[in-house]
């Protein structure tokens, strides 16, 4: 089965050790987490975790079910197949001389990025967007010399008024035809 990127969104109790529980389940199943972002949610005492992970639909579904069993995971959805908005924030420190500064400012402007710090030989740019947008800007900035990058990891939200779907009750999976049986 082909692996694809999955976006999991979990609401978890805001308590010490909870993130450890979530992450260690991925370790046990041998998953490399692409990106993970944690922050407060709209509910007090609940944090929202967005996890991007590569895997087959079957294995990711297994991990989702295992995560759902954790007492501290209040809700978890795989929103991969939903229409959703995904954003990430990056801070990029680029080398900038008097000769290149204006060109860098122009690039930042095209990407609607902000300059958050200016020093004699560097510029720090703050950019928000989906993965493609950030990667494109980084590609252009590379020629000037990137000194440092800090990225937040992606956060995601389902579009429309409904919000994240309720945990699905769709246990049906047709039995795979097995060869050499």
């Amino acid at each position: 089965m082909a692996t694809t990127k999955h976006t999991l969104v979990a609401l978890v109790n805001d308590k010490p050790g909870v993130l450890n529980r979530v992450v260690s389940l991925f370790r046990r199943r041998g998953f490399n987490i692409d990106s993970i972002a944690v922050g407060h949610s709209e509910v007090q005492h609940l944090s929202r975790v967005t996890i991007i992970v590569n895997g087959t639909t079957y294995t990711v579904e297994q991990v989702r079910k295992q995560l759902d069993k954790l007492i501290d995971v209040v809700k978890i959805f795989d929103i991969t197949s939903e229409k959703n908005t995904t954003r990430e924030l990056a801070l990029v420190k680029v080398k900038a001389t008097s000769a290149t500064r204006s060109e860098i400012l122009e690039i930042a402007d095209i990407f609607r990025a902000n300059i958050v710090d200016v020093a004699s030989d560097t510029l720090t740019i703050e950019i928000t967007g989906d993965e493609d947008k950030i990667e494109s800007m980084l590609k252009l900035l590379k020629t000037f010399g990137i000194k440092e990058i800090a990225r937040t990891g992606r956060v995601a939200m389902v579009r429309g008024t409904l919000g994240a779907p309720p945990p699905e009750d769709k246990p049906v999976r047709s039995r795979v035809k097995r060869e050499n049986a």
Partner: protein
Amino acid sequence: MKKTGAQILCESLIAEGVDVMFGFPGGVLLPFYDTLPQYPQIRHILVRHEQGAAHAADGYARATGKVGVCMATSGPGATNLVTGIANAYLDSVPMVAITGQVVREQIGKDAFQEIDITGITLPITKHSYVAMDTAHLAKIVHEAFYIARTGRPGPVLIDIPKDVFTDQAELTVPSRVELPGYKIPSQGHPAQLKNAAKLINEAKKPLIIAGRGVIISGASSALREFAEKAQVPVITTLLGIGCFPENHALSYGMAGMHGTGYANKAMESCDLLIAIGMRFDDRVTGKISAFAPHAKIIHIDLDPAEIGKNVPVDIPIVGDVKPVLISLQKLVENNSRISWLRQLDEWRQQHPMLDIKDGDKLLPQRIIREIYEATNGDAIVVTGVGQHQMWAAQHYFFDKPDTFISSGGLGTMGFGLPAAMGAKVGKPDKTVWCIDGDGSIQMTIQELATLVQDDIAVKIAIMNNGYLGMVRQWQDLFYKKNYVATPLSCPDFVKIAEAYCMAGITVTKREEVRPAIDKAMAHEGPFLVNFMVEPEENVYPMVPPGESNVNFLEQPKKEVSAWQRRSTP
């Protein structure tokens, strides 16, 4: 009135119905042990090693269905619990493990006997707590017991720093549990139940494979009614033994690596497999691509994460086994399935695998059959792990749930003796036999001292073959008899028993078997029988690892002669 953490813990345990706990004290637990005599309702049994405490709590829980409680001090005490906690986790046993911890301000500073036990046990507990505030202790204990015994049961760990025991707080009795992230599926989806019933009604060759989930759910009679109405034959997993009476006409024994040949043949040729409260362990499925190749599969389990984990299923029913079976029983039609059952009986005739070789040799299978007859099949049998475990599963016949207690998922050698101790404490009126191996029992043999000190009348039968028998069997069959690291030089187990002030007897001849068993049972208090059995006897049938279940090896034919099997009514 304010109470100390130690008092709050004791009162919370009593509120949860705890009347016995297995533990071992240590520096950080002293405030608790100092308080314990104020609460004579709690019987504390001092084990000799913390692993014994965890296994005893496990055996207690399986025999009674209640939550088993064990306790250990910080550091090495806590790490010694780990094997027992893992064992309970893999076999879904309700348990609360309480560990002491260093005082709060020393946590994280590598203090004396400090270890991150919640971190260590993260993947082997259903949930865990560090009680950092005495005021929260009562709520934590209440939640821990609730989580341990509900849903799919499992071990819950509570780590309590020393100064939380001594701090004072108001004891507020928690009235209800609020765990929004904890879901317990209950009834099973009605549409799936209908689909399942349709498949069952249409099936020509349906088969039920029942696991420990049936026992946990208390669904034995529901299973029986369902199987009888639809006339579906029943096989079980190792841990499912006892969930369906083995003397029932529809019972075809245990499936899997050391299962009966006819059970494995039935799985191979059935057109519908109804898996109930089991999780398709590799010891049951054999080679997965050849598992039940002609069957559609209905999987009934409480845990949604078990559905489709190892084997794809056609109809999943997520729910508590008992209500699901009761609803399913109403939906299925009466049936007779004469030709299918006749086929199974034919296979049973062709593969009389539970017959025992005749002759004068002291065979472990015969000893277990003798124990079965001496106890009228009414004992609780607890085993270690190895050949003796499989022989006990094959040759003792179990008709009731909670009577066969064995380490399935983890396969923990040394489980037998302490678990038997726990079972006897939980069910003092039942005869409890610990059937163990000479290798297995030596891993926890120190608990003989506990049996004596607390007068726990476990009867122990050691199948002493001078080998790590199961490993030797694999070396015999798959490694050209290259017996490396399996021959054992064993102590004189009767002398060991005597050194612990316990009675024992060694048996070397066939005719001494029954008198020795009778003597053990007549003896008040614990008793050890050391059976010097045939050293190179193998467990048959056996599915070689990685093979399909139908390719089982049988007892070499020329050696077999009849031993009357108990007739099926």
